[in-house]
Structures are given as structure tokens and as C-alpha cells.
């Protein structure tokens, strides 16, 4: 898995500095088709910055990002989305004034390039397609509820469905289970893993909950102070001395392996 053609995502020397501070420096990795890759690291390690550069929200100071061999560095988020990258956010960004199904329909309208259409009514467009997606994430009963009153876990599932609207080859998920109850977390990641396997999608996700990471990730990368310090299987990472030190715990205060209570 070392040629750019076979990798869905290839990142080369990605760096970002804000006013002299290196938020991310020289990150290199590849992501294969169908792979679930977790990016972990302490808060402030640069995970979100990294994500924002992959999705085009931030322009890298240097380095390149290739999607299926094509350079996408610095392109706008909406272009990258068109090329087949779906994204979910750490803080959900669903459309609060719309119903659940309308949120999906909105993304489908964009997918079908009907954004500037004046006919017909948006609520009548792609309803069945939207319903199928909602069924996929188990939210069809809530289709007509206002998004503003959804439970947080449901918002996260809705966001996953939205991210699938453009039939992506790659999903970027920033802390997909943050703020959810443990049972919900496992369920959401299981759902993601199933969908990913069925559709042969690659996933890159950040996560704090090690249970989720260890249970679902095929491979892990550890970011610390903007640098990738480890890249390997769950077993390898668990036994990596450096990772133990900076993330999973070390030093007087963090004697045991459970930093995050």
C-alpha cells in the first residue's frame, strides 16, 4: 500500500503554523480503500487543524494532499466534497430551521446539482432517497421532526447520513462520538463500520474514547504537538513506549493508563 494510485488519501509533508507556532508539522500518511484509520492524540495536538486542512477549511503552510491520486491541496471544502469526501464535525452543523429529512434533502439537492432550481418545492425532491438514508442510520421515524429539538446522538447520526449523500469514497469524522452516552457511542461507530464495509468507503476519524478506537479502527496514528509520533495497528500502538508516555499516560501524575476518566 505505498503507491499514490492505490491509496484513497495520501498526505505528504503537511504542515501548518499560526503566527510562528507550529500546529501541525510534516505529517505523512496514506489511507487505503475500505480502511478505518483513527487519528488520536491529546487535546491541542493538532488533530482538528489537520482535519481542516484535509477538508479545505484551512490552507496548509506546506505539504500536499492527494485524493485518489489527484492533488486537492488548498481547494475549497465544497470542491473537495464534490470529489467524494464526506465530513462530519465535532460540533454538529445541521440546519436548525429544517426538519430531519429536509436536512438530507438539502444535501441531495446539492448532490444532484439543483441548488439554483426554483421548482419544484424542495420538500418534494428526493424524498425516497432521503428516506433510505435515514433508514440506514435508523432515523426514519424522526424524519419530520424539527432538527432543533433532536437529541445530540441523533444529530450525530443525521450528520453521518448527510455525509453519505454524495456517495463519498472517503469520510472524515472529527470526534464522531463526542458528547454521546457510552452505549450510543458503540452503536454509532458500529453503524459507521457497517456502512463503510458495505460501501467500501475509507474513514479517517479522530476520537478520544479509546474503547471506540480500539474496537473499530483498523489502524491508529498518534499526533502529539503537531507531529505524528506513531502509526500502526491497535496492538502496536498499545505497546508503544512513546505513546504510553505522551498520551496514554506517564510521569508522576499519570501513573496508570487511564488519563481520561
Amino acid at each position, binding site marked *: 500500500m505505498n503507491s499514490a494510485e492505490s491509496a484513497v488519501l495520501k498526505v505528504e509533508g503537511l504542515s501548518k503554523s499560526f503566527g510562528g507556532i507550529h500546529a501541525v508539522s510534516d505529517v505523512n500518511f496514506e489511507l487505503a480503500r475500505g480502511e478505518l484509520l483513527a487519528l488520536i492524540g491529546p487535546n491541542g495536538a493538532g488533530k482538528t487543524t489537520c482535519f481542516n486542512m484535509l477538508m479545505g477549511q484551512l490552507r496548509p503552510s506546506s505539504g500536499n494532499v492527494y485524493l485518489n491520486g489527484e492533488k486537492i491541496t488548498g481547494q475549497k471544502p465544497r470542491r473537495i466534497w464534490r470529489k467524494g469526501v464526506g465530513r462530519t464535525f465535532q*460540533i454538529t452543523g445541521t*440546519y436548525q430551521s429544517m426538519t430531519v429529512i429536509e436536512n438530507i434533502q438539502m444535501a441531495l439537492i446539492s448532490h444532484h446539482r439543483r441548488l439554483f432550481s426554483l421548482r419544484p418545492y424542495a420538500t418534494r425532491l428526493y424524498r425516497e432517497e432521503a428516506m433510505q438514508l435515514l433508514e440506514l442510520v435508523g432515523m426514519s421515524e424522526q424524519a419530520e421532526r424539527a432538527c432543533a429539538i*433532536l437529541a445530540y446522538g441523533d444529530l450525530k447520526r443525521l450528520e453521518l447520513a448527510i455525509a453519505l449523500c454524495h456517495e463519498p469514497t472517503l469520510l472524515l469524522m472529527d470526534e464522531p462520538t463526542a458528547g454521546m452516552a457510552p452505549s450510543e457511542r458503540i452503536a454509532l461507530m458500529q453503524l459507521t463500520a457497517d456502512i463503510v464495509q458495505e460501501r467500501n468507503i475509507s474513514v479517517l476519524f479522530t476520537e478520544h474514547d479509546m474503547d471506540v478506537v480500539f474496537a473499530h479502527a483498523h489502524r491508529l496514528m498518534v499526533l502529539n504537538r503537531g507531529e505524528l509520533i506513531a502509526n500502526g495497528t491497535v496492538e502496536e500502538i498499545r505497546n508503544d513506549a512513546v505513546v504510553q508516555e505522551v498520551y496514554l499516560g506517564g510521569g508522576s501524575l499519570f501513573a496508570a493508563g487511564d488519563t481520561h476518566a
Partner: protein
Amino acid sequence: MGLFIAQLLTGLANAATLFLVASGLSLIFGVTRIVNFAHGSFYMLGAFVGYSLMQVLPGAIGFWASVLLTGLVVGLIGVIVEVLVLRPVYKAPELFQLVATFGVILVIQDLALMIWGAEDLLGPRAPGLKGVVRIMDEPVPLYDLALIAITPFVLFALWYLISRTRIGVLVRAATQDREMVAALGVNQSWLFTGVFFLGAGLAGLGGAIQLPKGGADLLMDFNILAAIFVVVVIGGMGSLPGAYIAAVLISVLNVFGVSYLPQSTLVLMYIVMAIVLTVRPYGLLGREEVVGEHGQVGEPERPIKPAGTKARVMVAVMLMALLALPLADSHFLVILTTDIIIFCLFAASLHFLLGLGGLVSFGHAAYFGGGAYAAGLLVVHVNAPMELAFVLAPLGAGLAAFIIGWLCLRLTGVYFAMLTLALAQLLWSLVFQWDEFTGGDDGLVDIWPAAWLSEANSYFYFTVIVGVGGILLLRHVAHSPFGYALRASRDSQRQAEATGINTKRIQWMAFTMAGALAGVAGALFVFSKGSVFPNELEITKSFDGLIVVFLGGVKTLSGGVVGAASLELVKDYLTRIEYWRLALGLLIIVVVVLAPNGIVGSLRKAWERLRGTPADEPSTTAPVALTSASAGTQESER
């Protein structure tokens, strides 16, 4: 050379007033986040109060004491306004307060009329500074030199207050994070009131200090409003030195404009602003505005649904009733209804932008007046038939909106709003000053409908069809994919961009469309009146639109139309009494205080309470406020 220097000095002297007033506006906005439309009124009050005080207090000491006392008095009036009018509405959705400040404008206008009368008052000369000195053979008034000397001290004093005293530290801290300041034990309401006192006082000082160069009249409030907005925008929101530089720039340019380009003095200011903002979008010394992004604060808008059968029948019945109106055989009623429909269309187009798009335009009159003038000019200059003029008017207005929208949409929040206002004023000043083409102040007259519409009631039917048609079109668009994309761009720009929506382009098209429909309203207007004057493009017209949209309810589809119809009806009734502005202003303030969700929104809430059925049961763990507009904030745990 001598003339040049003399003009430069005049410009610098004029900058004193502009700076004082603008810095107050900037301070108030910085801390309270209120765009204080009534700031021009404080300035006007300053002139009147100063005038009266100068009548009583004699001599040079009396003069300067009057100036200072005026600052104090107007500052206290500002405190009264803040406590009585604004405190109750701080919690209302963002920008809703500006409706309240508009009510204040009306109230102050009539109070000034009651107290000082309608006559323009000529300001007294400053004792001891009545003469002129000759600088390179050019006469320069001593008072101008005094003003030039004083302003830097005022700037310094303000700068010292803001950057070196505890009060200043608190003000700056509150500008950034009011809630945190409160959590550290500082009484915010006291701070707000203090800033209002200071801001209003500065405006009052500005009004008093310009008396020897001008005077006091009832138009001063609006006359300075556009200029101070421009100064604040050019200087950069919240920057005192920026405000000073901008005030000097504008004043000096104005003086030179008067001598060398007398036809374009007004335009010049807006051109400078457009250039500055093209190079530096947040003003000369301003910083990127993060607060007040596009989008809505508070409870999100409810999901919208296409009208059901019941609603459609109701609309049809109302339409029938409208068409049957001429049977009542009241010419007055027909005219009034025509006016209302036209205003409703104008308001609906603004509501489309403001409600669905979250784009607060302070200068929507540009497209209404623009449409009216486009039609009028075609008729007057090329003798175009009404039908052609009627088709080209919305295109003209749409084109203006297309260009202005492109310029403004590079900015967000209050900068966006201010720039829309300034560019609208640019259009107004063009019309106002380009006498030979637009007729200037005399307007365009003799613009009548085609023969087939000249029958007494036929133009009314035409208005009903076109006006109501336009409103229904906007409603239809709200439900269309485009309308949804517009709301998506407002709800979460980040999510929209991450799912392939070019939010800027969507907003740009919406801006253009709203402009074109306001142009339709303008065309309807010009042929119904037979004439058009520059005031159709003016700030007040834009504000009228804003008021009705906010009063009607931003977060309801019908808010604009309902607000417009209500206000026109009330206005028609109130204008029959002498002090109708006072009455209307008070009414607006009362509505704002009692119904912060607007008329439609508040009625809907009341109705739901009556029936005891909230729209949907809240779910147990839904973090409603989590996805509020600010995408940049850290996720906070609840």
C-alpha cells in the same frame, strides 16, 4: 497654495464634529452591540440644547460651559433612553434593538419640534473667536483653528480613558466578552449605561460644538447619520484613532469636493469608502468582526411548510376581497390599498433577504428607489412606453443589487449591514446631485401608466396582480431548492460549504433577486404616483423596511407582509394627528418591548399557549444552543 491650506484647515475643523459623533457610535456598538440609529438624534439634541444654554449663559466662559453642559445633558438623555427603552430588549434577538432605536428617533424628532419649533436656528458665534486670521492671504475663522486644536485633545482624552483607566479596561473587556466581565463581578448594566452616557454625551458635544459653524434644525439627525456610519466603517468599528483619521479624511475631501467637484460632494464620501473597504474590508484600523455573523441568534426558525389547502383558500378569499375593493367606491381606500400593497412587496423582498438569508441590509431602499428611478428615467428621457419601463425597472434594480451585493457580501455581520447602507446612500447622492439627469431634488414627474391602465381602478387591479404576484413568488422561492439553499447558508455556512453549496453565490443571487423585486415595487410606485423623488432612495425608506420586517417577525414567513400592512394602516391613521411621530415612535417602542418575536411570532406563541400545544415536545438531552451560529467556539459541555 493659500487656498489649499485654508481648505485643508476648514476640513480639519469640520472633522471635529464628525469625530465626536462617530466615536460615540463606535463606543456604544463596541460594548452593547447595538447599532444605535438614534445616534443622529443625540447629535441634533446637542445642537438644540447647546443653543438654548448659550442663550442663557453669557460670554466666552458661558459658551464653553454650555458646550460641556450640553454633553452632560445629552449624556443623561442617553441614559434615560438606555434604561427605559433598551434594557428591556437586550435579550431580544440581535439587531431587533435597532427597531427600538428607530422609535427613539421618531420620539426625539417630535419632542424637539414641540420644544424648539420648526424654524431652523442659527448658531451663535463663539465669543472671543468671532474673527478670522489670514493665513497666506486666505481668511480662516478663528473658531476653526480652535476646533482643530481641541479635537486632538478630545481624542487623547478618550484614548486615555479607554486605554489607561479601569473604566476603559472594563469597557474593552466587555467589548470582547460581556458575560465573563459579569462573572468577574462587574455590573454589566451599569457599564452599558455608562457607555451610553459617554456615547450620547459625545454626540451631544458634537452637536453643540458645531453651532457657530452651522445651527440647529430638525433634519440634522438623519443628515449626519450616513456620514458617521461611513466614518465608523472607514475607520474600523471600535477604533477611536481610526474614527479620527476617517473623520479628517471625509471632511477634508468634502471641502475640496465643494470647490472642485461641486456636483459630486456627496458621492465622493461613498467612493472613498468603497475604495478603502476594497483594500481593507474591516476599515483602516479595524479588526475582523466575529460577533454578529450572518445567521440568527436565539431560538431557531421553525421548519416551514408549503401552504395547506386552508391557507390557500384564505389567500384566494383575500385576493377576491382585494379585487372587489373598488366596488366600495372609495377613491381614498383604493389609493391607500395600492400604497399598502406596494409597501408589502418592498417589505417582503427585504424579509426574503433578512429572514431567509440572514443578510441584514440597511440599504434596501436603493433597489426600491432604483426601480422607481429606472422606470422614471426611461419614461422621461427616452419616452419609453410604460410596459418597457416596467420590465426594465426590476432589471435595473436587480443590476444595482448584483453589483452592490458582490461588494457587500465580502463582509459579514455589521460591516455588511453598514456597507449596504453606505452604498445605498451612494446611489441616493448620485440621484440627488445629478440634477440634469435625475432632476435632483425636484425629482421626476409626469410618469403615468399606459392608456390601458389609465382607467380609475385599472391600475389598482394591476397593482394587486403584480404586487401580490411578487409576494407569492417570493413565498414560492422560499420553498424551492434555492430558498432552502439560502436558509442552509444562513443556518450553518460551514455545513453548507462542506456539502457542495457555494454559500456566497447563493446569497449573492438572493441579494440580486430581492433587489429586483424591490425594483418591481418601485416601478409600481412610480406609475401610481406619477412622480418620484430622491427620498424614495433615502435611509428613512430603508429603515421603514427594516422596522416592518422586524416588527412583523423575522423568523416567520409572513412577517414582512404583516408588518408592512400593519404599519401602513397605523401610519395612515396616526399621521392625521399633529405629533404623529411621537405617537408612532412610542407605539413602536411598546411593540418592541412587549413582542420581541415580532407580531406574527408573538401571536403564534400566544396562540400555542392558548391551545396548550407546543410545536413538539423537547427531547431530554437535546443541546439546542450547541449549534448556535458561532462555529468557532469550542464545544462546551453542558
